[in-house]
Structure formats: C-alpha cells, structure tokens
C-alpha cells in the first residue's frame, strides 16, 4: 500500500499538542470538538451535573432503555475522543478555575445562547484577556448580535427557518421533516473550518481570533442557489418530490422486496438509450418522442410508472448491478442500519467500534475524509460524567491534592 515517489515520514495527528476547552451541550458545539479530538487535539468538555446536557438526560436511547447520564448513547457518540470534567459555573470559584483551564488552552468552543457565558463571568472579552492568542468559537442559533440573538432553538426547527424543510416532500402536501437537527451539522462543519483557518492564521501571525458563528447563517450557505434564484427571478423555490431540473427520469423506484427502493437518474439522451437496454428494450420505450429530454419531461410521470412496473419485479441488488453495469447512475436506498454492513463504507473505515464502560460496545463515526499520512480517530466514546475532573484540575490547572479535596467538598466540581 505504500505509495511510489519520495518517501514521506509518518505524521502524527495534525492537531497533536493542541488543547481545546469546550463549554456547550447537545450537538452543534460539542461535535466541533469531536472532529478536533479525532485529529489529535486534547479536548476537555466542561459540563455540570446541576444542569445536564440534554444528550445525557432527555434524549434516548439509553442503555437498556433506562435513563441515566452515563447510560446515554447520544452523549457517548457526540463526544467521542474527549476528556470530560464537571464544574458548577454558578459558583464564582468555579469560574476562576475555568479561567485557569482556559489559560492553558489554545481553543475555546462555546455553544450556549448568546450572553449566557458573559453572565457567568466567562464572556469573550474575559477569555481573550486571559489568553490573548486564544481562538474562540461562539456558535449559537442566531449569532451573538441582532434582535433574535437570545432566542433559544433546536436544530430540527432552525432547519425549517433556513428554508430546507420547504424544499422536501410532495409539492401538494405538507413538507416532510429533514431528519434530525440537520442544520446543526452544517454549523459543525463550518465551525471546524473556522477554527482551523484561525489556527492557520495564528501559526503565521501569532494572532488569536474571536469567531461568531450563527448556525442559521452557516446553514444558509447550503441554500445559496435557491436564495439567489428568488432574488434574481422573483420565484419561490419549493419542493418537487424527486424531480430534478436537469435529469429525466430522476426518481426512486420500488424493488421486489418490501420497502426496498432503487434510486436512478438519467442525465442525457445516451444514458436514456442505456436505460432502455437495461430494461430489456421494452416496446413503450421505443417511442421516438422519448429520445429527447424535453420529450421525456413532458411524460415524466408516465415514464416513472413504466420504470416502476419493471423495478417491482427486480430484487434491489440485482437491479442496481444491472443499471450500473451499463454506466448508469443508480444506487440502493440504504436504511441507516444497512450502513453498518456497507462494503464501501467498511473499506474506508467509516465506523469505529469502541467499548463504553456502561453501555458496552458502541459504534463511532470516522470523519468523511481520509488523510493519507495522518492518524485519525475517534477511538474512544465520550467520557462518563466527571470522569477526568481530578486528572484535569490537578494535572493541567495544577491544584494539589489538598486544594482539590477542599474544592470538591465545597461542591465546586458538581
């Protein structure tokens, strides 16, 4: 497997030696840290048992369906590769300890509603004074400024505000949900990019950076063509089921097995000919009016019905193989459970297994890009509640045993 050409020394993880302090919960903030941890950063997730992360308390699944902060699989997944500490930031002494931790860090990630950390004495100005070359990412629903800055929100609903939901489903019916907090993961990707770009600048100039990321604005990057279409042409883009503006036919067709589907798209007239061959050159497809995209567009629903008549007689796998063998774009619609057995994802090591001390064996998700010469995680699930409190506050902040015990007795590490 070793590439030809000049020998390259094996590299450590790109972010080895980088320390990240993370204050936030659920998906949008913590998953940024997870990507950094997967590339070698020491990410310390700060939380409190007095106000649990909803991924520890509210969101199933739990081990054996019994709720409990260390039984919550969502938290374990979203915080893979991190160390975890508990600190009750409602106490001033805890805020002082948090600042001592920040002084030893390169990056701070926070994802509370705008203004939350300032009220605790951990505003961006304080963090910046504590360590001037810090890279600080504030990620929240609507950004740190503006009339809606304080508005709390969940990603599943912000996805609707950003226009995605409007574009999903049958045009004559209520839109369907875009699963999960879709927009949160867009904000995560841009959050990672923002931090990496700021670290690259810091390496060049020594400057820190304060990043204000509105999850709403990040999500709108993926909507840009639809927004520009409205601005340019006055139209309101809406959902179109599985229709495409170029490809025809373009759809999802039933296979012979129950609830198994085949995705297929035809991008030009040559591909249409290939499809006709793959379908066994049926009489209906010989109609010369179907040889052009405009002709197919005029009878798209009828063509979809004809393709479905064929597909209903085909097992999904053999239909996809047959279509692909003729160079067509076709794929099985895989359920999420099927992804664990997907040969292509397995080849790429997309799923990692790790042992969680309470939940047992869990799957973790690798980054969707492979770096040829760098190590990439994740290799361990998220921490138990307060698992690394003592090692972090003694090892990094420098408390001695007596100081630590006294603070613990005061309830600071709750």
């Amino acid at each position, binding site marked *: 497997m070793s590439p030809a050409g000049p020998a390259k020394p094996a590299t450590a993880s790109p972010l080895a030696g980088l320390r990240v302090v993370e204050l936030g919960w659920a998906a949008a903030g913590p998953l940024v840290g997870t990507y950094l941890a997967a590339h070698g950063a020491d990410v310390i997730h700060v939380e409190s048992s007095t106000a649990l992360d909803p991924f520890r308390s509210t*969101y199933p699944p739990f081990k054996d369906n019994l709720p409990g902060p260390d039984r919550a699989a969502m938290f374990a997944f979203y915080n893979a590769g991190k160390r975890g500490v508990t600190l009750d930031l409602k106490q001033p002494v805890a805020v002082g300890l948090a600042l001592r931790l920040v002084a030893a860090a390169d990056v701070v990630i926070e994802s509370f509603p705008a203004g939350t950390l300032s009220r605790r004495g951990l505003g961006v100005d304080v963090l910046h004074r504590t360590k001037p070359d810090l890279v600080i990412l504030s990620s929240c629903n609507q950004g740190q400024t503006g009339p809606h800055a304080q508005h709390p929100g969940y990603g599943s609903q912000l996805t609707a505000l950003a226009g995605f939901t409007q574009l999903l489903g049958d045009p004559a019916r209520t839109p369907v949900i875009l*699963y999960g907090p879709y927009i949160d993961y867009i904000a995560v990707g841009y959050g990672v990019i923002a931090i990496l770009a700021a670290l690259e600048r810091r390496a060049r100039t020594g400057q820190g950076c304060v990043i204000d990321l509105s999850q709403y*604005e990040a999500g709108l990057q993926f909507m840009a063509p639809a927004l520009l279409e409205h601005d340019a042409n006055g139209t309101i883009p809406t959902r179109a089921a599985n229709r495409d503006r170029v490809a025809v036919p373009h759809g999802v067709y039933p296979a012979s097995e129950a609830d198994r589907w085949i995705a297929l798209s035809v991008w030009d007239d040559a591909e249409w000919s290939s499809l006709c061959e793959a379908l066994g050159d049926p009489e209906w497809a010989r109609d010369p009016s179907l040889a052009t995209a405009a002709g197919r567009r005029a009878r798209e629903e009828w063509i979809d019905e004809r393709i479905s008549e064929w597909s209903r007689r085909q097992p999904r796998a053999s239909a996809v193989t047959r279509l692909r063998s003729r160079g067509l774009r076709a794929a099985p619609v895989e359920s999420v459970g099927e992804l664990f057995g997907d040969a292509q994802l397995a080849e790429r090591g997309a799923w990692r297994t790790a042992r969680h001390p309470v939940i047992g064996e869990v799957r973790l998700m690798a980054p969707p890009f492979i770096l040829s010469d760098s190590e990439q995680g994740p290799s361990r699930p998220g921490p138990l509640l307060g698992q690394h409190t003592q090692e972090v506050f003694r090892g990094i902040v420098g408390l001695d045993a007596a100081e630590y015990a006294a603070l613990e007795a005061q309830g600071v590490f709750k």
Partner: protein
Amino acid sequence: MLDGLRVVELVGPDLWGAAAVAHCGRILADLGADVQKAEPPEGDPVRRVPPFLGERGHPDRGLLWIALNANKRSVLLEPGDTARRVALLRDADVVLQPSLIVDPASADVRLVVVTLTPYGSSGPLAQTPASDLEVTASSGSLWLAGEPGGAPVRTSLPQSPFWTGMYAAAGALLAIIARRASGHGQHVDVSGQQSMVTVHPPAAVFADVAHEEHMRLGPNLLGRSIVGARFRNIWPCADGHVSFAIQGGPIGRHTGRMLVAWIRERGAAAPRLGAIDWETFDNRTLSQADVDALEAEVGAFLGELTKRQFFDGVIARNMLGYPVADAADIYADEQLRARAFWQDVSIDGTTLSFPGGFALFDGERPTIRRAPPTLEGLLPWTPSGTVALRAR
C-alpha cells in the same frame, strides 16, 4: 484568514464532482485563499445547470454556478494538457479535483491533494458514477425522508455537493496544518456517501445501541420517546407551515407553558394542554394516544396563525419553534438584516443580494471581493441544450 494560500481547482466532466469541488473552493476563497479554477474549453459543467439569472440560459448566468464560484479566478486548461497543468500546480499549496487527475503518490511532496468523489477514491465503488440522488440514497439520509410507506424523497436543492465540499475544506486545512510540522502534503480523500452519513447521527445511534431502525414518518419526529411515540414537527398554518413540537427539558417545558398562555390569550380552549403540570412534564414517557390528544389541540391553534404571527409569537415568548420559511421569508428576516448578512454583487449588469460569509471573524464577515469568472473571455459561447449539459 488564509492569505497567501494558493488553491487550484481542476474541473472534470462530471457535474456532481464539479459542484463539490467548486463549493470547497468557494469556502477557501471566502477565507482569503487565492483560488484559481482550470476550466476545459466548454467550461465547468456547473455553468449549464438551470435556473439562470433572468431565466436566460448562458454559461455565466447559472445561479448554481454564480453561488459556488464567487471570489475565484479561472483559466482555460485543455483536459489533456499535462504540461500546462503541471505548470499551474507548481506554485500551488492545494489542488482540488473530482477524480484522480493528479496522482497523489507522484505529486510534489508539499502539495495537498484533495479528491472529492461520490464514494471515495478507493474501494469497490471507487469508479462508480453518481449524482446527488444516488449519493444521498447510499447514505441513509434518503431513507429517512418521506411519507410512511411511500417512496423516500430528496431535498429539491441538491445537498450532497455542499456537504462534501465543506468536509473537503476541513480536510484540506488539517493537511495544511499538518504540513507546518512535517513539511509535506498528503492526500485528502473525501467521500460524498460518507459525508452524507454524517447528517443523521441519531438514527445511527438508535440502530447501533437500541437496534431500532428509524423510518420515514412524514412530518413527525422519532427519537424523543422511550416508548416509541412520534411527535409532529411540521404543521399546516394559515398561510403555509410552521415547525413546532411538544418537547421536554427545561426549554421544552417553558415552551409548553407559554403555548398554553398564548392559546388562552387568544380566547381559545385547550383543556388537555392546560391540565399539564409543566414542572414535572416528561415527554419521553407519553403514550402515542396521549401525544395524539395533545397534538389535536396544538394543531387547532397553529392552524389559525400566519407564519409571521407564529414567528413573532415564539420570539416574544422565548419559545421553541420557527416558521417553515421560503426564500422570500428569509430575505425579509430582520435578524439577518441586523447582522448585515446580505451583500450586493453585480453579475452581468444585475445586482444580486448574496448570502454573506458563514461566520464573523473578529467582528468582520468575509466579503465577496470578485464576481464569478466569465467563460466569454476564454472562448466563444455556443448555445447548448439540456442534452449537452454534462460533457462526456
């Protein structure tokens, strides 16, 4: 942020790959990198994708093209012109490519080679072509969208090139950071399929830990209940739809209390919602029958409101929920205006209001410094129909 970083985008004949490469390049360009496209004589296939500015088909007026290629320069590069390609890459830090045009194993030792393909550049599907529909189908995310029992459906604006381009930008920056220590570049191999697997982690966690397969549920949510109940998240309202759900946790309980007060303010009745003790309310354990009964009252109330009334109401009460916005609603949003999100850019004589940069860095938003490059200067344009949209 990335001043001095030199990026070259190679363009192939495939639309999906060209769009993914272009989005990655756009992100790096917005951050200040010098991004140079190398287009074949017929231009990037993204140029031919409708709709067009003013509904006038032209390779400089496609709105997907315009969205993905601001802040870049472009030169003509014949696909077979290896010598010129090598020359173009000589001073580059990063090359973005839709297939293994540049072999990472024999590339310059400092070059970061980023390859964006539907399934990844190795493995059983390495050579398999795909568009957004097939990439999404292979990732589980198509499976999760649609009506129960009906065919899975796709977002009408193709999303997978955006996701793949975004992750490619992250991978490219990690490789650039790694190069500071090692002195050498590396291959960043980005998969569209795997990029789309990242958009629904809760479904993967449920499948893995609870051995429970999440399904298409139309406008309803799964994953909030330990007894398998679903909660509606999209509702018809007086002039469209809104997103709202009965939720737990401190903010969800606050939202429930505020909803009851709002219903009463409007003189309506909601006996079941009104009887809830929100201090102890736990949405995780409600039966489906309980949820349905509560949702009947929620639906009756939301059906009377306009999107605007709902939005103003949730903002004023600090409740969870948002309208299902369309493009016009988004341009009208006062939050985006207050944050100076939009930027005017002149394209071929028309001023367009562009979505601004994705974040503020030290209080400043990255700007659009340069309109997308035109093809006209490079070669004469000949009109081309849909059939030629993707050069073979």
